């Protein structure tokens, strides 16, 4: 039987990680399934487990003038219901899981799971969100898009844990999320798309595009977006095919049980085009 620590305080959790490496479990909706054993058997973790689910001090949504701060233990349902939550993240959470999962799972868990099909990641990439990472020794912050390094690969040392997600407050006039999945709810995406834009007096002031399940991480390319800043609506619509050419080399999906690479690539390009021509 593996050892377990049920932390009730933030300090207790950091100390446990300082003492020895643990698998960290918050809601557990991914960790239990990934490590499941036979019916009736305990979850088959390979190393000690640190349960952080009961740390109330990490369960919050706060904001100030420029940012929204979400504690690592905050449930998806709480985030969905908060009036502080950005529109794109609300749209995604509403579609990404059933109520039972939303009452259990955390946003921090979706980040740490580092799946290219993790729906919430599209909002976090598009919003330039940060994760706060803590150990006994230090606190650091980095972009979610830097924290996630590949499929299930994250920039987290064995003595560290995610403590907070920080989302910059930004206003957008166009907010789009499309999830392509075999059914409407409670499904893992074949691919997903998030688009944000701020259009003022017919000029593109800001545009952001993120794609899920078409590469080893969520795809977002700021250099492509920057090329079209300052364009008029008509000009960017005329450039739609060139934007697709810009994205084409970065969309490299795989074949798996949910879909195939040809379908994923074509639909991803179609969704980008649809977003551009509807601006």
């Amino acid at each position: 039987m593996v050892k377990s620590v049920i932390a009730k305080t933030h300090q207790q959790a950091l100390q446990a990680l300082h003492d020895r490496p643990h698998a960290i479990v918050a809601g557990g909706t991914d960790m239990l399934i990934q490590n499941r054993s036979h019916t009736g058997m305990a979850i088959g973790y390979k190393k000690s487990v640190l349960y952080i689910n009961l740390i109330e001090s990490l369960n919050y949504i706060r904001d100030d003038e420029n940012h929204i701060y979400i504690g690592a233990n905050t449930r998806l349902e709480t985030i969905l219901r908060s009036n502080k939550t950005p529109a794109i993240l609300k749209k995604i959470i509403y579609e990404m899981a059933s109520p039972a999962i939303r009452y259990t799972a955390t946003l921090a868990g979706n980040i740490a799971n580092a799946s290219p099909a993790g729906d919430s990641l599209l909002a976090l990439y598009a919003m330039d969100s940060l994760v706060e990472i803590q150990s006994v020794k230090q606190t650091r912050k980095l972009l979610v898009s830097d924290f996630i390094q590949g499929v299930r690969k994250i920039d987290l040392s064995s003595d560290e844990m995610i403590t907070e997600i920080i989302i910059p407050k930004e206003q957008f006039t166009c907010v789009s999320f499309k999830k392509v999945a075999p059914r409407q709810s409670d499904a893992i995406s074949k691919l997903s798309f998030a688009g944000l834009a701020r259009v003022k007096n017919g000029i593109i002031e800001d545009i952001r595009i993120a794609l899920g399940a078409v590469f080893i991480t969520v795809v977002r390319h700021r250099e492509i977006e920057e090329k079209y800043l300052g364009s008029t609506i008509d000009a960017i619509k005329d450039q739609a095919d060139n934007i697709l050419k810009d994205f084409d080399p970065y969309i490299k999906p795989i074949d798996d049980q949910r879909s195939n690479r040809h379908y994923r690539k074509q639909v991803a390009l179609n969704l980008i085009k649809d977003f551009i021509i509807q601006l």
Partner: protein
Amino acid sequence: MTMINFKLNGIKKTIETDPNRRLLDVIREDFKLTGPKEGCGEGECGACAVLMNGHIVNSCSVPLANVDEQAIVTIEGFSKTPQYEVIKDAFAEAGGVQCGFCTPGMIIATQSLLSHNPHPSDEEIKIGLSGNLCRCTGYNLIIKAIKIAIKKGEGLW
């Protein structure tokens, strides 16, 4: 082994066991409550649904460690409430039960939905049930049952 204290159907329980066990297994094996059932075992089907602090959760996806000092209600505990009586009668009236395997989870999902939103739209009912699969595919009758429960249970939620 760890001591876990929690409320099960309103009664305080203490159990010394492996905290890495699933809540579903503890409910069924240690407390012999077989209303919550294992369907998929991965949080997709809702047959194992219970209420934790009044919210629906899949007990197959909850480690016992996360239940410490929390309140769990299974279909057995919920069946002693007036809300259950209304939902049960509505399911019977609408024919919302076929093989019955999904029914405890469907009733828990209904209670979780109505306790947060006593007058859901059709779309909200569907979203409320989106984590519960009925392999007899009797969804329309279940939705009809919930609409009957909303009407007959006015004021209960």
